[in-house]
């Protein structure tokens, strides 16, 4: 659906040259919700703007529906942009237009008749749940409502693709949840491919199918969200995951744990099917050891379960080693250290 082939974007000013996007190659499949995560300045915002040519690539190709877009004429480009909806962190609603007027604007640009506009706006208002706000001005709306209008406006012309520029970053956690749910609905009910950028891992975890991690303009890791959480390769990815899994231990906490639990501390990572098995009690029976569960968390990722446990193992040193060897065949065993993920 959207393919980047060795795409770079360089910004030149008198003082310096900035390579915002550096040799990015990735593909967003039709029907996916594709997330790009990175810290600010990683180049993800520029990458997103290359999709609808708000930024033109310095080198490489951006291909949408097997069409290389930088070769389009101005007119063809405007046609293309109507097939790609966009929503923004700061909503970017027209303050001088009502909610109705905001949603109607892209339809008017596309040359829709008055009846068509009315029918479509009504439909979109219903979809985002703002039927009663048609005559309000943006200033009268809450952040969440503004983003709903933004989504309705972006989808008015029935695009195939929706691109989201930090769409939930200006919202509180509860509203973020509502907007993410709405985006999921957009993806599932309207079958719209979504590419979003964010700096929040929970956004990726809640709705994305695939994810790219960006740093200094390059994609440092890419894959399914489950794979990324299960086997993070880079420290940056691990850091992002830590934020949502909340299982990074501070040195102080670790010292306290060690004082209270003198046995061997390990972290066990359960993925997919094994989360349903009573692994610990099985091993306690198989080996002459005891498990003391200190901390545990379980998350759902792309319909698969992902669990993390910190346990203290008590028993004979050799028996523990044998048990751990055997455990490693079932689950991922990590040492518990403070800088570990």
């Amino acid at each position, binding site marked *: 659906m959207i393919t980047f082939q060795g795409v770079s974007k360089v910004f030149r000013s008198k003082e310096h040259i900035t390579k915002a996007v550096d040799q990015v190659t990735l593909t967003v499949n039709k029907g996916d919700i594709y997330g790009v995560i990175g810290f600010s300045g990683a180049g993800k915002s520029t990458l997103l703007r290359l999709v609808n040519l708000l930024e033109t690539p310095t080198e490489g190709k951006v291909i949408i529906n097997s069409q290389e877009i930088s070769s389009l004429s*101005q007119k063809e480009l405007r046609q293309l942009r*109507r097939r790609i909806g966009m929503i923004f962190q700061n909503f970017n609603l*027209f*303050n*001088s237009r009502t909610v109705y007027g905001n949603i109607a*604007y892209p339809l008017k*640009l*596309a040359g829709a008749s008055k009846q068509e506009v009315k029918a479509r706006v009504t439909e979109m208002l219903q979809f985002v749940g703002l039927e009663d706000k048609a005559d309000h001005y943006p200033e009268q709306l809450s952040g969440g409502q503004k983003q709903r209008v933004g989504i309705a406006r972006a989808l008015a*012309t029935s695009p195939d693709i929706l691109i989201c520029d930090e769409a939930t970053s200006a919202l509180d956690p509860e509203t973020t949840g509502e907007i993410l749910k709405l985006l999921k609905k957009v993806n599932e009910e309207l079958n719209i491919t979504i590419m979003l950028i964010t700096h929040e891992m929970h956004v990726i975890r809640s709705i994305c199918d695939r994810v790219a991690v960006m740093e200094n303009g390059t994609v440092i890791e890419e894959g399914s969200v489950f794979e990324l959480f299960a086997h993070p390769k880079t420290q940056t990815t691990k850091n992002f995951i830590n934020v949502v899994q909340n299982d990074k231990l501070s040195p102080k906490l670790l010292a306290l744990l060690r004082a209270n639990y003198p046995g061997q501390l390990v972290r066990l990572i359960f993925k997919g099917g094994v989360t349903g098995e009573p692994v610990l009690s099985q091993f306690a029976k198989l080996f002459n050891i005891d498990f003391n569960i200190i901390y545990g968390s379980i998350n759902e990722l792309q319909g698969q379960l992902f669990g993390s446990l910190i346990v203290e193992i008590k028993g004979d040193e050799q028996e523990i080693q044998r048990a751990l060897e055997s455990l490693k065949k079932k689950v991922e065993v990590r040492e518990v250290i403070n800088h570990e993920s």
Partner: protein
Amino acid sequence: MKVDWSTFWLRVVEATGQTITMVLFTLIFSSIFGVLIGLLLFVTRKGNILENRFVAMLLNFAINIIRPIPFIIFLVTISPFTRLIMGTTIGTAAAVFPMTIAASFVIARVVENNLVSIDPGIIEAAKAMGASPLQIIFGVLIPEALGPLILGLTFITVGLIDFSAMAGTVGGGGLGDLAMTYGYQRFDASVMLVTIVILIVLVQIAQFAGNVISRKFLRR
């Protein structure tokens, strides 16, 4: 010699009419030119939808030449052009020409300033929807800037009343002229007082109208 108010009030009414005529026509014409120049200034800025360094430089240069010239000197300087275009340099109609030119460039700056204060994200959103530069200008830039723009025009209207007084002294008529000839040169304080009161009332009306209209469009 003091004026005879039993007949002089007619002159006051006539002069008020001339002032209003000068200000109103100037406002209409300079709004049209000023908004056009202001829009052009804005869209040709660096990084904007119709970036054009040459046009931007030329317009900025023109504005910076005309604006610092004191209006009374400007008025006299361009009188050959006034004669060329209006056929005469004397009278209310002839005063509208130099006033329009001077005011257009002031309005152009006000328009540009109001446009600059529009969130660039809103323009980006319109672009992302596939709007052409013209559609952005008329569908986004003007409506978004209209509220503060009307306040700016109100401010300029008040300035135009001041301009009209100077235009009066070179044959444009109006309240300024009346105050100068009868009030100032003949030391008649009553004429001074009456014209000042009328001018204050005119300014108040203009400001009030501007506030009311702009409130209709201010949606922020």
